[in-house]
């Protein structure tokens, strides 16, 4: 039954999308694959709207899907039969061999897609969000997870399928995009009079190891490639016939690319530029741009309203907000431009053969530079332009899967060139298919490379004796799945679990807070480290005291004047008149630059909470206290943690006449013994911030402190799984 549900969920989604695509395209384009991808844009938008009004129920999906299926049914006699056999234009022997190879890979990917979802991002945030949206029947304001801030156009389709067939149905939807992609590549070749090269290119893409594992998982990169290529295809089609209806589809697809992934914004520019360059008509541009905006605007508005940043989690320097820090964004970007490589010259071998950047394209793609020879032909120039458009953002994230969107264009240009030598394109394609089979890949790729297992999971896919095989499959292949099961069994519904490392959120109904995934989670992570003796730099034992002649003041300001990589933090700021600390009054007004939202934490009498800049120190940062009157003071004490050795602080005061002047000189810096009760205070503060449970992996720094001093923390160990422990907070 589960297998049937999976198939129904996927096929219903595909049928609905295809039908909706037919409503958009009408007679202007009759290829099923193109209609599917175009209709997917409309279906995605429909699901988005249902999520906004909190009507994301299976019944609502059935109603929307019925519209599409009805359209598909209505045109069943009108649609042309599928295009002439994909291998038309090739020899009979080649046709049989191609069919065999495509068929083998099709079955391989189908079974992997139907098998329980075990991909890192698929079982993590892609379907974790989908699971959450379905449980809540729509969107909720999520400020604790940067991945909820990304555009999720494909996740909307996953949600549609997930409602019927759960995780594997969503993966099957992505697989549908892979099938549509290669089908459209062959259709393009037929129209362009280059059948053999297009079939060979389709095989190069289809058999590519990273395309296979990505396309049979609940990822989105293959979908982006399908959208990109379908957009290209329709632009070429429109250029030939100038049918206005195609512009509507082109705009929808361009917008859908952005709605699926921010990096596809180049497709919008490409589409608008192409339409203008070829037609120079404002009406055409307006139609294209308007339909693109219909897909783009909702995601931007959602983020703007909920997160104060339409492009969250990026561009936080231009849209300051308390949800994502500038320092995190910069670190995040910096990591993905290099991963662990020591030089960018390592990229070609890693992305084609070794696979250490998250998968491999296949060694034959070392021939990709030959594709430049296709510039000699108009079609080649179009293909390579498209490759440049959809590969323009690659160096922002050098993971192999970020090369999937431009891959079809590169493959087509390459096979165009190879086809100039009889038999060469076919030989290369078949060689690629042979060495890309999962059992062959381990012979040249690194063991850690992301790829399909040599073992075909047919029993798991068909859910034969589901409890025995499917559960064992997930437990043995998906790190963190056992912890999911433990969390579901040992915590109460609605519980919140904090972890420093992500684990598959798609298989738990609890709220999972991953430390790096938001500013508030990062603060919780630091609060916990404040109480952990293994993190000396986080213990609030630093004391910086400014002393000055007694003065009547209206305001004091602590100004940071240095530049560097440190983040500046203050756990407590105290103001004294002699031995007496000034009482903190409601009339006091506290401000800070940057990050004014958390300044109260420096005045709450808790050493485990703190104000902290969300970006590296630079001149212009300050913390300011307006007394709302005048106070007499002669010293200011800052209680904080070390680990910010680069800061340079100056104290200023505004006197009764309103004049700002320096107060005293450099602060006296000393340390004190760690205050008692930090562990308990940190745990209680984390609980106050909404955390009910902690997951700590045994090999994490600080794990021993939680384990050995559980009583001091007030923690109770609830269970262990996947070399991690689940603790309940006090």
């Amino acid at each position, binding site marked *: 039954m589960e297998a049937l549900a999976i198939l129904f969920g996927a096929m219903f989604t595909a049928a609905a999308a295809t039908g909706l695509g037919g409503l958009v395209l009408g007679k202007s384009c009759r290829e099923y694959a193109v209609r599917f991808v175009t209709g997917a844009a409309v279906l995605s938008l429909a699901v988005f709207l249902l999520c906004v009004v909190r009507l994301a129920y299976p019944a609502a999906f059935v109603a929307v899907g019925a519209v599409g299926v009805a359209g598909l049914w209505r045109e069943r006699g009108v649609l042309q039969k599928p295009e002439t056999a994909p291998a038309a234009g090739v020899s009979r022997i080649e046709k049989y061999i191609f069919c065999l190879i495509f068929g083998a890979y099709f079955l391989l990917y189908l079974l992997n897609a139907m098998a329980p979802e075990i991909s890192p991002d698929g079982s993590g945030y892609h379907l974790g969000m989908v699971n959450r949206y379905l449980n809540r029947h729509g969107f909720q304001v999520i400020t604790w997870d940067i991945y909820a801030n990304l555009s999720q156009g494909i996740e909307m389709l996953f949600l549609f399928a997930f409602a019927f067939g759960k995780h594997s149905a969503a993966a099957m939807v992505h697989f549908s995009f892979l099938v549509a992609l290669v089908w459209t590549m062959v259709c393009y070749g037929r129209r362009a009079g280059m059948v053999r090269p297009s079939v060979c290119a389709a095989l190069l893409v289809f058999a590519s190891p990273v395309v296979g594992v990505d396309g049979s998982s609940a990822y989105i990169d293959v979908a982006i490639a399908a959208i990109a290529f379908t957009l290209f295809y329709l632009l070429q089609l429109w250029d030939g016939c100038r049918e206005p209806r195609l512009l509507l589809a082109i705009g929808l697809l361009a917008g859908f690319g952005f709605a699926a992934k921010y990096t596809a914004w180049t497709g919008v520019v490409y589409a608008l530029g192409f339409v203008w360059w070829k037609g120079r008509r404002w009406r055409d541009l307006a139609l294209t741009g308007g339909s693109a905006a219909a897909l783009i605007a909702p995601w931007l508005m959602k983020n703007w309203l909920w997160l104060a940043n339409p492009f969250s989690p990026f561009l936080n320097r231009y849209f300051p907000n308390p949800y994502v820090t500038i320092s995190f964004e910069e670190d995040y970007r910096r990591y993905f431009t290099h991963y662990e490589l020591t030089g960018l010259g390592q990229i070609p071998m890693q992305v084609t053969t070794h696979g250490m950047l998250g998968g491999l394209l296949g060694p034959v793609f070392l021939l990709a530079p030959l594709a430049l020879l296709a510039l000699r032909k108009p079609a080649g120039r179009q293909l390579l332009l498209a490759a440049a458009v959809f590969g323009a953002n690659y160096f922002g994230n050098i993971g192999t899967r970020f090369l999937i969107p431009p891959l079809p264009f590169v493959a087509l240009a390459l096979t165009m060139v190879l086809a100039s030598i009889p038999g060469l394109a076919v030989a290369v394609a078949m060689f690629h298919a042979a060495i890309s089979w999962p059992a062959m890949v381990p012979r040249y790729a690194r063991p850690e490379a992301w790829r399909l297992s040599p073992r075909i999971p047919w029993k798991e896919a068909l859910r034969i004796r589901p409890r025995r095989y499917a559960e064992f499959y997930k437990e043995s292949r998906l790190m963190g799945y056992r912890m999911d099961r433990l969390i579901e069994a040992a915590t109460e519904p609605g519980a919140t679990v904090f972890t420093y490392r992500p684990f598959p959120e798609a298989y738990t109904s609890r709220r999972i807070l991953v430390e790096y995934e938001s500013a508030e989670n990062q603060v919780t992570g630091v609060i916990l480290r404040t109480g952990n003796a293994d993190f000396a730099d986080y213990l609030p034992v630093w004391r910086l005291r400014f002393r000055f002649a007694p003065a009547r003041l209206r305001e004091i300001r602590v100004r940071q004047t240095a530049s560097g990589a440190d983040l500046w933090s203050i756990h407590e700021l105290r103001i004294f008149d002699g031995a007496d600390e000034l009482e903190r009054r409601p009339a006091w007004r506290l401000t800070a630059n940057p990050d004014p939202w958390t300044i109260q934490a420096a005045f709450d009498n808790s050493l485990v909470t703190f104000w902290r800049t969300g970006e590296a120190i630079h001149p212009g940062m300050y913390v300011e206290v307006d007394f709302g009157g005048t106070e007499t003071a002669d010293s200011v004490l800052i209680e904080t943690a070390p680990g910010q050795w680069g800061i340079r602080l100056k104290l200023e005061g505004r006197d009764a006449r309103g004049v700002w002047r320096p107060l005293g000189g450099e602060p006296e810096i000393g340390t*004190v*013994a760690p*205050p*008692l*009760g930090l*562990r*308990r205070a940190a745990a209680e503060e984390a609980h106050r911030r909404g955390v009910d449970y902690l997951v700590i992996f045994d090999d994490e720094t600080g794990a021993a402190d939680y384990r050995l001093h559980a*009583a*001091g*923390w007030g923690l109770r160990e609830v269970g262990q799984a996947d070399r991690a422990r689940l603790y309940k907070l006090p």
Partner: protein
Amino acid sequence: MVAMSDPQADEYIVEGFRPSSEGSWRWALDHPVLRFYLPDSGPLEFVMDLTLPEQTFAVTGPVTIRIAVNGRELDRMRCDRAGAYAYRHPVAEDLLRRNATNTVAVTPDKTAPREGGEKLGFVLSRAGFAE
């Protein structure tokens, strides 16, 4: 935890010490008592770094220091030689008052009398509670 070098050390002293520290240490007299505010936390140990100087050991010989928390005996520490000692002892929860001030008396059984009636016990560097 208080170090005798801390400018705020006097806030931890109830009685029985010289009025000021000699840099990083201070003379404890015949009835030294300290006070500590103890918040909620895990199990605690009482920690003390002290020295029995040669000049007083020559008068007193081996000394036993009785440690009492909130008036109830915690332990008796035997010092058989002159020199430095690092003392550490778990404190049962029933001896403590959480979220309140707790007193700790560290009373030597013998002292070395000085002119003016002062009775020198030992030299304290730091004392307090640790998790």
